[in-house]
């Protein structure tokens, strides 16, 4: 009896041990990536392809799993909580507004040693690009996506209003808006909902035009902040009735459906003019720098933009997993892959990549204008360097537009938010 029990126990023990050994030895490293490049994002298709190709090439060793994050604001909040608790994802994208918190937490993977030991990084990044993300000798994030925000306008609707070109100053711009309104269309897409993205971009453009590209160094007491709000107040006379409280879907939707003539967003939206716009919309679209404020410190043709996102990783205790993550980051920053992403989505990347000659027309036109731009100033969200202030901006803007406050009062609301 006892012999039988011992025999059975031995067999069981050996079986379990062999199973465990085989499991450990063939352990596939899983990399979790909560990605915002999902759903309607213009980079979704190629990102999925890149992940599939990487997984296929590393089958049985590394597997990247995308966790869809369909709302950027919610993703940003989730990431904020993760940074605070130190439980960062394996791979993630991080915006400029959270970089300081990421560095202070010390919970990100320090990529400096990998960068120093592998020539890939210096080959694919422009000079000083990586150093600009270095703090105290550490690099927690790789600069990745860039953006600028040109004006996109519907040439057909402007032509119907008697305009063959987009005006280069606000006086003529508002005359154009009046003319567009008289044709029965609405001139601009605006929004005060969520982070007031579209309107915030317009405000950023006006601010840089009035105060110069270094306006954020001058503080909220500079009169440029008031003047820019005056322009926004006028702007809202030529927008849709649902602009107050509207989110990006509403604001963009009006332009995609040809209800509005003028829009502002980043290059990632280029692909959507074809995929989500009414038939023929893309062919009717032109890009231009924002109008200039006469007498302002910014010159004609100025742009706003900056770093849209950086690639980062959570600190790992397993060296093998760390190596796997670095391998995946290298894959994402390979010039050919970046070129594919840029070609399909219209997005811009800091990684040096040879772009095909048949890039989207709008992308090519925008690039040409950037080349001649006197400056690319930061957007307000990033340049102001204060989450409380940028959080309060939509409320200050809606208060201004509803005539609850004057432009001076709107600036005061931003100051009070600190």
């Amino acid at each position, binding site marked *: 009896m006892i012999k039988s029990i011992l025999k059975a126990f031995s067999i069981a023990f050996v079986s379990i041990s062999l199973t465990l050994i085989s499991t450990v030895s063939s352990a596939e490293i899983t990399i979790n990536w909560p990605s915002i490049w999902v759903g309607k994002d213009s980079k979704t298709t190629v990102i999925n392809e890149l992940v599939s190709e990487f997984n296929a090439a590393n089958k049985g060793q590394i597997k990247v799993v995308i966790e869809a994050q369909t709302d950027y604001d919610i993703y940003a909040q989730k990431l904020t909580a993760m940074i*605070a608790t130190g439980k960062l994802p394996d791979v993630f994208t991080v915006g400029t507004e959270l970089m300081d918190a990421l560095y202070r937490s010390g919970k990100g993977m320090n990529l400096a040693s990998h960068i120093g030991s592998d020539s890939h990084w210096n080959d694919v990044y422009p000079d000083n690009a990586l150093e600009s993300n270095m703090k105290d000798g550490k690099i927690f994030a790789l600069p990745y996506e860039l953006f600028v925000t040109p004006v996109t306008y519907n040439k057909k609707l402007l032509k119907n209003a008697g305009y063959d070109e987009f005006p280069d100053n606000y006086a003529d711009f508002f005359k154009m808006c009046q003319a567009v309104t008289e044709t029965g269309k609405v001139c601009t897409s605006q929004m*005060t909902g969520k982070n007031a993205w579209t309107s915030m971009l317009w405000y950023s453009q006006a601010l840089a035009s009035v105060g110069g590209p270094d306006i954020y160094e001058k503080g909220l007491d500079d009169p440029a902040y008031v003047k820019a709000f005056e322009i926004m107040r006028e702007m809202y006379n030529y927008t*849709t009735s649902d602009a107050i409280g509207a989110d990006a879907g509403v604001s963009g939707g009006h332009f995609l459906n040809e*209800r509005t003539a003028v829009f502002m967003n980043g290059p990632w939206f280029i692909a959507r003019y074809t995929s989500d716009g009414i038939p023929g919309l893309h062919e009717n679209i032109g890009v231009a720098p924002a109008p200039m404020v006469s007498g302002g410190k910014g010159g004609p043709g100025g742009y706003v933009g900056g770093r849209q996102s950086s690639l980062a990783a959570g600190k790992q205790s397993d060296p093998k997993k760390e190596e796997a993550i670095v391998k995946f980051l290298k894959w994402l920053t390979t010039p050919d892959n970046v070129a594919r992403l840029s070609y399909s989505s219209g997005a811009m990347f800091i990684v040096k990549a040879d772009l095909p000659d048949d890039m989207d027309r709008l992308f090519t036109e925008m690039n040409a204008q950037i080349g001649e731009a006197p400056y690319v100033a930061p957007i307000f969200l990033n340049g102001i360097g204060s989450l409380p202030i940028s959080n309060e901006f939509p409320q200050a803007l809606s*208060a201004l537009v*509803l005539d609850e406050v004057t432009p001076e009062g709107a600036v005061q609301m931003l100051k009070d938010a600190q």
Partner: protein
Amino acid sequence: MKIKKDEIIWLILFITPAISLFLLFFIIPILFLFITSFTNWDGISADFVGLKNYAKLLNNKTFIRSIINNLYWCLTAAFITVPLALIIALLLAHRSRGWKVFRTILFIPQVVSSAAIALLWLALYNSEYGLVNYLLDYIGLSEYKDHNWLGSIRTAQPALIAFSLCYVGYFMVIMLAKTAGISEEYYDAATIDGASQFQKDLHITAPLIKSAFFLCIILAVIFNLRQFEFVYLMTNGGPANRTSVLVLYIWKELSIQRLGLGNAAGVIMIVIGAILLIIMRKILKSETYN
């Protein structure tokens, strides 16, 4: 009843899990909240700042507005939603033909995601393509054709609160269930005395479901003190912070890493909730809802 010595150990063993859970998930978090409310904790570091957070909050217009808005939500629930639920419960208590269908229809919003309802109403209220303006224009109120209900200082808060009346079904079901326990003898006696249906509802049904009515008021106030998803999804506290509520305010502070300040707001919210409960107990008199 005197507890025997050998029973004390079993008593302790049986209540320890409950006490532990209560400590772990209620007392300790509240203590943590209270302590960190005196710091400038941003999720990474924290320095003691004394009462600075509380002073900042009490001088912040948006925070005060949030408290007032929460009181609006609570008063609307207590004086409109729950009484409306009472009237509907009294009507359905007659068990007239089709009463079960109406009961089901009124309860449907409870089983639908509140986020889905909020987004649905966001579309209905849209000034460019929403059904509300279309219907108003159709019946001749063309001045509302392009009205932005959620983007107007005057109408944003009422528009937000108005659609929340669709949750009347929850309270209606509670009071309707209470009517099932009323003895038919009361109604028989009233019928013999020549009482009308209205008189029966007023003098028999309503008094006998008073405890359920008061319970519903308390629940309604508690629910609306915690109001968040409708405001977040539909207005995000706008326009101009006019529809902000306490939980949204706290959430915004936490999301920009002002955790000490957010926690101070949380402490104030707990105090407000406690005061409201004490007031309600005194007004409604505790013995009536036992």
